[in-house]
């Protein structure tokens, strides 16, 4: 029976090609627009740490100005970065499973091979906890130990690309690499790793690639380095690097790993006690306002998904709505135009459900065709986005995956069936007697 309906639908659709093309194109445009914006939203809104969202916590303390909140637009939010002294104290207290305190900067690399000129790499100066918390995949070796942190050991983890460049992709664990004018021992080589967004450090480009080289936090401090990302102070500090270290300037990212939500609350209690102690020394003039955000909460608080993207998604769906209303109207007009035919079929014995099934088949067919063409439009839309965002990881990730393909077809089919419901229902209401009378 279905095959028969399908054939009838094909005949009907072919009879009025322009109208069919119009309906298919409308659904396809709607699908293309919505799926393109959804792909971007999906990608920006994803959380690469979702599998341990509760365990990984961003630590934020409110050490800011008594007169002014850190962010005037969101006055209840504490600063997103931390001072050196607090980060250092929290790492030393070691009240969580792992602590990662870090800051980014660049380091010159002097390759052993003379033919490669010295060049700069983006480096992350981090405590050992970074590796167990964010679990970057290792090709060779691993991270370093907290003991090596304390002794500011010259050890480094390098990414696959750097390893290819310096060591031709061989297992370089144990070999030397010259960074910032000093010899470092490679302890680990990473596989390709591109968490999107780059959750651990979202400032200055949440969609940038991770740093290429990882070295101990204490080495950076020993070399008097600071962050090449954000440094913020709300008052003058004492001169020199020593002054920076004891100041209330914030520049360090701090994460910890806890067991679960309850453990996170225990850790928050510890932080509140810590701030209480610090208040005795005259620091932390604002009310106690600390955070142990999970990764997803942190991404939300940092508004990693831009407003523009959200607006675009809303617009795309409003557009889709217009396309569907359009389709409802056209299907209605078409089906009503067939009233005499329907009347005849009903008179010679077709039941209402049979007529219903037949016209719904026709709507569904329009939907599937629209979905397929919509995929083409989505592809074009993503191609255009890659051009617009050339040079960021959005460019790399604006790709259609099978989930999206399936979803597009499903949405197109469901939407067109819904759009077809009312016209089909109206078609079923045709009174055979009235139709036959007017013939």
């Amino acid at each position, binding site marked *: 029976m279905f095959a028969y309906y399908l054939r009838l639908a094909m005949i009907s659709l072919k009879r009025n090609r322009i109208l069919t093309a119009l309906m298919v194109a409308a659904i396809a445009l709607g699908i293309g627009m919505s799926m393109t914006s959804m792909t971007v939203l999906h990608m920006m809104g994803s959380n690469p740490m979702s599998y341990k969202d509760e365990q990984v916590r961003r630590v934020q303390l409110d050490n800011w100005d008594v007169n002014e909140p850190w962010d005037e637009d969101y006055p209840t939010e504490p600063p997103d970065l931390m001072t050196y002294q607090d980060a250092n104290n929290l790492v030393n207290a070691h009240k969580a499973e792992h602590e990662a305190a870090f800051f980014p900067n660049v380091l010159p690399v002097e390759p052993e091979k003379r033919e490669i000129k*010295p060049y700069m790499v983006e480096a992350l100066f981090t405590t050992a906890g970074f590796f167990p918390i964010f679990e970057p995949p290792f090709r060779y070796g691993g991270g370093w130990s907290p003991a090596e942190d304390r002794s500011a050991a010259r050890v480094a983890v390098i990414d696959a690309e750097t390893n290819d460049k310096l060591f031709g992709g061989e297992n370089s664990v144990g070999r030397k690499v010259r960074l910032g004018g000093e010899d470092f021992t490679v302890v680990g080589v990473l596989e390709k790793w591109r968490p999107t967004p780059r959750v651990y450090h979202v400032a200055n480009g949440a969609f940038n690639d991770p740093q290429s080289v990882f070295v101990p936090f204490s080495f950076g401090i020993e070399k008097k380095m600071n962050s090449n990302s954000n440094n913020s102070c709300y008052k003058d500090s*004492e001169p020199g690097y020593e002054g920076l270290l004891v100041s209330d300037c914030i520049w360090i990212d701090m994460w910890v790993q806890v067991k679960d939500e309850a453990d996170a609350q225990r850790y928050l209690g510890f932080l509140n006690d810590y701030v209480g102690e610090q208040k005795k020394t005259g620091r932390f003039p604002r009310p106690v306002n600390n955070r142990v955000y999970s990764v997803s909460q942190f991404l939300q608080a940092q508004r990693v998904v831009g407003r523009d993207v959200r607006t675009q998604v809303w617009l795309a769906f409003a557009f889709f709505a217009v396309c569907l*209303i359009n389709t409802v109207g056209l299907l209605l007009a078409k089906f009503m135009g067939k009233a005499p035919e329907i009347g005849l079929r009903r008179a010679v014995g077709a039941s209402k459900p049979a007529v219903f099934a037949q016209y719904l088949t026709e709507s569904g067919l329009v939907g599937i065709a629209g979905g397929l063409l919509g995929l083409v439009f989505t592809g074009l839309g993503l191609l*255009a986005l890659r051009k617009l965002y050339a040079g960021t990881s959005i460019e790399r990730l604006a790709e259609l995956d099978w989930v999206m393909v399936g979803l597009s077809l499903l949405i197109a089919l469901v939407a067109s069936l819904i759009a077809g419901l009312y016209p089909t229902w109206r078609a079923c209401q045709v009174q055979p007697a009235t139709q036959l009378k007017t013939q």
Partner: protein
Amino acid sequence: MEFRPILNALMRNKTGLLLIALQVAITLAIVCNSVFIILQRIEKVNRPSGMDETALFTITSLGFAPDFDLRGSLRQDLEALRAIPGVIDATTINSVPLSNGGWSEGISTLPESVPEEQRKNTPTSIYIVDDHGVNTLGAHLVSGRNFTADDVSYRSRDDKGTPNSVIVTQVLADQLYPDGNAIGKPVYSGLGGKGSSSTIVGILERLQAPWVGWDKVEHAMLVPQYQDGEFDSSARYLVRTQPGRRDEVMKEAESKLGAINTGRIVRGLRSIEEVRGESYRQDRAMTIVLTTVIFSLLAVTGLGIVGMVSFWVTRRVKQIGTRRALGARRFDIRRYFMIENVIVVGIGIALGLLLTYGFNLWLMKHYELPRLAWYYAPLGALTVLLLGQLAVFGPATRASRVSPAVATRTV
């Protein structure tokens, strides 16, 4: 006018009427607000930065050799850059306007001895340049004087030097000293160490802070210093070239700096146009996406009307024939469909105005967008009205060609 009969006829086809009206309404709301957003983005992107943008590029040097002499390298590099044919001027600079990365500081007109509660801090971006800074940027000095070589001091990690003179933008000067004439007045910035002050010696017509999205984007202050390893042994240079010679000078500058000293790395060669493109990329993307949405929407709605009306015409062929037989002219038939369309689209517009302002209120609440200017809605309404007329013209013309003889036939 056959307004009443048309309305009566429409009322017999409420669903069709409602569907078109709804499409028109959503289209109007989206088009008005999108055009509004687009124009705002265009305005934002077109704000003058105060620089001679097309003639500028930036390049950085980072020393890594243990015996790297930063001061010597600064002097040598600047000399070399200024000597390249086609270069107008060159300066050191800590960060580049439009680059979204820079240094901000709260400055005050009152000394630190005043209690913190009464001191009003004004945030501003800080550009650390030498005495060639103003000329290199291509900024326009409206009053006071430029920096001289004597003003320029070195700032290092432990010694912040003597930034005694500063140049500020007009907007910042007005903010600090609303009574006018800020020249010769002090600003307390702490730039020369805790509690230090500087004197305003000059005022620039305009210069943007590095953050294009900042609400105080014209708060900028020039400080005459060389950074002598304040954070690391890096130096950023800004170079202004003669019109049209930028690209050749860029290549020359890179190779020249690379040859001068091998104990450092030269990188980050970028034209300011490139920097600008990156900073405004999101705005550009938004503009393009919204434009696409607008045109697709107008096309879908327009074609939708064409399709619907075509069907209505087909269904009414007999009525049309009868009217023609009874003496209606072709013109009358066409007018019938045109007026019908005005009524349908008009209902859509009425509904659409509500949606437009609703959407605008929502945007105002969540996106800090201003209120829609009054003329958007009438202009938008006019646009969709014209779109409707355009869409209906074809089917209406076809209707007007129906022969009166149709009335005499039975279908």
